[in-house]
């Protein structure tokens, strides 16, 4: 019994870490622009597929490929903001959200044309055996994801709390007009937030590719789950994204283990509804009254 429970927990941690790292991208962008980017999952896909091209097909060393992929996807994010978001004449939130949905379909199409329709396998970063703890096995790649998510959350928290640029970015989200009156270049901040969020998406794609494999249509489901995780933890909260990811992943795994595998997704979404009902801002979400 104990062994199974532990194994379900580990399965949950593996999936939870994946959801958390994607949720981070949602929260980062929301933090700076109050915008939800439904193409976030597609930027994760771009990260994973570009890694396949640079690392496996062109044979670049992994750290170099990592940096190049993040830069390239960040650049794609900048282009996306410049071409599709900024050019909107009446930037209502609902219009912008629908534009991101459109962008996700576009990016999926691009992914299919460039990389084809077949899934591609990516080897794990370290050729280690799975780690055995009390009869249950944990993937080394899960630990990689876990470690990197932790580092990212700490670094982003420091960025928002300690640096002037970070504070300026939060200010833009709270009130764009007021921030602009204080001399903050709000357009530049939005652009930076897009680069940051899509770059994070690329990191997510790179990290999860060895577990999920890389396909052009991997982004939609992962984006949805990442969005759920971000909502669960509290949109805009970085620690919330982390927590939301793990709660979602572990709830799914326990659902499979103790209820039924057919109800796996239903259990996860039921949990989301329940939490949003009790706490509309998510577990660690900031109350909306803080924003004016």
């Amino acid at each position: 019994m104990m062994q199974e429970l532990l194994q379900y927990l580990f399965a949950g941690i593996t999936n939870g870490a994946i959801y958390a790292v994607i949720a981070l991208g949602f929260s980062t962008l929301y933090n700076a622009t109050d915008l939800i980017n439904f193409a976030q999952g597609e930027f994760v896909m771009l990260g994973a597929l570009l890694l396949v091209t640079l690392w496996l097909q062109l044979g670049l060393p992994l750290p170099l490929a990592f940096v190049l992929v993040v830069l390239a996807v960040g650049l794609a994010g900048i282009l996306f903001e410049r071409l599709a978001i900024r050019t909107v004449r009446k930037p209502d939130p609902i219009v912008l959200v629908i534009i991101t949905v459109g962008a996700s379909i576009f990016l999926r199409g691009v992914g299919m044309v460039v990389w084809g329709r077949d899934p591609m396998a990516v080897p794990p970063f370290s050729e280690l055996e799975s780690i055995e703890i009390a009869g249950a096995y944990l993937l080394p790649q899960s630990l990689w994801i876990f470690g990197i998510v932790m580092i990212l959350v700490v670094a982003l928290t420091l960025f928002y709390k300690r640096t002037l640029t970070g504070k300026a970015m939060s200010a833009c989200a709270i009130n764009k007009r007021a921030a602009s009156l204080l001399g903050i270049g709000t357009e530049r901040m939005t652009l930076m937030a897009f680069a940051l969020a899509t770059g994070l998406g690329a990191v997510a794609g790179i990290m999860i590719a060895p577990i999920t494999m890389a396909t052009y249509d991997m982004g939609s489901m992962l984006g949805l789950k990442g969005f759920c995780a971000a909502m669960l933890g509290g949109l805009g909260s970085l620690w919330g994204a982390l927590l939301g990811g793990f709660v979602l992943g572990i709830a799914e795994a326990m659902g499979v283990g103790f209820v039924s595998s057919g109800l796996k997704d239903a259990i996860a979404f039921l949990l989301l509804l329940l939490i949003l009902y009790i706490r509309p801002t998510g577990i660690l979400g900031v109350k909306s009254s803080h924003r004016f």
Partner: protein
Amino acid sequence: MKAGKLKVLAALVVGVAMAGLIFTPSAFAQDTYKIGGIFAVSGGASFLGDPEKKSMQMAVDQINAKGGIDGRMLEAVIYDTKGDPTETVQFANKLINKDNVLAIVGPSTTPTTMPVIPQCVRAQLPLISCAAGNGIVNPIQPYVFKTAQSDIMAVATIYTYMQKQGIKKVALLCVDNGFGTSGAVQLREQAGKFGLTVVSDESYGGKDTDMTAQLTKARKAAPDALVCWGTNPGPAVVAKNAKQLKIEFPLFMSHGVASPKFIDIAGDASEGIMLPTGAVLVADTLPQDHHQKAALDAYINDFKAAYGSGVSGFGGYAYDAIKILEIALKGTNGDKAMLRDNIEKVQGYVGVTGTFNFSPTEHNGLGEDSFLMVRIENGTWKVME
């Protein structure tokens, strides 16, 4: 305001006129024998539709190169359904009403085939589906045939092997789409017949990225073997997870992953996995006197020459369908009812997928020889006795 109304009226008139043009049945269509093809050339089922489209075109070209049928050339009209039932129905309509085809080959999957069946029955037009689902030819519809093996036979092949190996308890793990649920039904129903007990019955989502929870649950039930029913990439994840969990009982998969792509993405984890497949995948290892050897070699070499890529296990469904039509079309002068009757009379056609023997009560026509059990060893398929 007035100008606007006029414009709408003009557009309406032009629209009606064009619609008339499109739907006027063409009286000159019988110069060639037109055969329709609807395959999932792109989208999630493209691993089926793409080779099917290529194989159908190749078979048609070959027949034309030999001078056609009764002096008439064949013409293939092929559409891409993207695996979407709605688009499939629209294209089937187009084939029936506008292109005036004599028969339709395809669709590639069961969910896209089912809605097309009533259309073809109503139009009294032979349909030769390339999908696996048993529901296509059961109950028998006069105008509906299929060339792909049923999951009934795939399951029977696996269970026969298990019985010989003395396996008693089996765990199931099926994908929660049409392919998986149809397989799961067969796996459950036939288990008793082969002395097997299903001790664990789980499912997974087609895009799930981790199946360790399901495998842990299966392991708890202590089965002698696990059968995973799905198409790429899910089974590759299952194979990888099973290796990570150091699961010791053998893994069986469906014919849905019988392609080199599976070995490619599952890597080392695919070693030792057993699955049923058509003979096409292992054609080079078959003995010269194998009854399908000549048909397989011809198909494989022609396909390589035409497209420069290796064959998959699926293109043969469309190839066989055209070859069966070639036999049945002779002497019909393009009469669809006669064509239908002739398909039911096709006997002993040795094709890529197996030997076909059609009859009024058998519209799939395949026998036991359509599946072999193979085992993945050193990154390739090995036929098991």
